[in-house]
């Protein structure tokens, strides 16, 4: 790794002020540190957010569930409020990576990174979430801007994610057998006004699948439905065609778990 200076601010204001020049925020570090070790990324200042008190709380607030940005996946997976309000989020969090990754990786780190095969973006978009930051908030619809791109400005810190509590929700993913990232991950949610379907892994960035939403709203059969999109990803792990097919399979699996 290239040398850097690490600081551990005790407040958001202090953390924001420290963001100068070539800097990065650190939460669980399970994407950033490997990238820095591989010298894909170099920073002068690394700002560790985990010493800031109160950033990892989880609470039900009316018809929303609010999860602090530095809450670790393992904590989300076993949290009573999560399991009661939106059990699909506990399932999703419990299926990320492996136990060691879940013990350190955070929801905020994942959403700030916006890996196109990460799980959390599908939940945020599928549950019409609001992403709260040190400078305001972003609706999920506006927040995700394609592969590794978000609406976060330089120095803007993700502080919490506010999920709408749906009538029902389910997450199904076909993981890559080694990395456990999604080759296709489908988050399906039912709200009073209709269904929302978000796809991760199969596409170049998380996106809604409006055709599947319409089929669920009208009660049409989902048989044979596959994702046809110019945005499908294709690489050594899976072709675009296979990912589109997997998206359909995972859609039917998630839809069958909606209760």
């Amino acid at each position, binding site marked *: *790794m*290239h*040398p*850097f*200076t*690490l600081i*551990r601010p005790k407040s958001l204001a202090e953390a924001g002020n420290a963001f100068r020049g070539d800097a990065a925020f*650190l939460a669980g*570090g*399970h994407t950033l*540190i*490997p990238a*820095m*070790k*591989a010298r894909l990324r170099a920073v002068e200042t*690394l700002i*560790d957010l*985990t*010493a800031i008190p109160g950033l990892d709380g989880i609470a039900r607030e009316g018809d929303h569930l609010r999860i602090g940005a530095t809450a670790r996946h*393992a904590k989300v997976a076993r949290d009573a409020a999560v399991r009661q309000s939106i059990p699909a989020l506990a399932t999703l969090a419990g299926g990320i*990576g*492996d*136990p*060691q*990754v879940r*013990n*350190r990786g955070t929801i905020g780190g994942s959403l700030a990174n916006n890996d196109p095969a990460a799980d959390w973006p599908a939940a945020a978009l599928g549950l019409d979430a609001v992403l709260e930051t040190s400078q305001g908030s972003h609706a999920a619809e506006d927040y995700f801007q394609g592969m590794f791109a978000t609406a976060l400005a330089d120095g803007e810190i993700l502080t919490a994610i506010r999920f709408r509590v749906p009538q029902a929700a389910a997450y199904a993913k076909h993981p890559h057998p*080694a*990395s*456990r990232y999604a080759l296709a991950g489908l988050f399906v949610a039912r709200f009073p006004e209709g269904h929302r379907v978000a796809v991760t892994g199969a596409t170049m960035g998380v996106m809604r699948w409006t055709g599947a939403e319409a089929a669920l709203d009208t009660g049409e059969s989902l048989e044979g439905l596959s994702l046809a999109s110019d945005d499908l990803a294709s690489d050594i792990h899976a072709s675009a065609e296979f990912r589109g097919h997997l998206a359909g399979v995972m859609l039917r699996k998630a839809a069958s778990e909606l209760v």
Partner: protein
Amino acid sequence: MRTTFTLNGEAHAADAPDETLLTEYLRDTLGLTGTHIGCDTSQCGACNVLVDGESAKACTLLVATLEGARVTTIEGLGTEAHLHPMQAAFRQAHGSQCGFCTPGMVVAGIAIAERHGAEPSEEVIRHELEGNLCRCTGYQHIVEAIRIGARAMHAPAGETE
């Protein structure tokens, strides 16, 4: 940066460059070479240690972020005369094989027993071992060792298999 934490039950002050990884610090500075470096890319789990009682990959932890933490390495689990029950179980079930992944497997096994109790099913153990790779591919004995170790960890004092 100077970082203070508990290492294997004793107060420890580390003075290391900010980019120092826990694996590097344990092995190169302290000579605690029981924490192995396998893939060095957070996949294989040979470097697993316990941080505040939960398993974590030391190759992906910066020492400077461990202020106040409780870190336990394989060296802190038992002694040659008094092995940790999970270590004894690995010996009993021949869970070690070539030995390279063993420290990480033992640490993962302890975390499994802490979370799932005395009788984790084979399915649970195999699922929980997703972050640990054995290149001998001999998972059968490892799973058996963790079953025995979990039972022993939760047995009333003095009772062992």
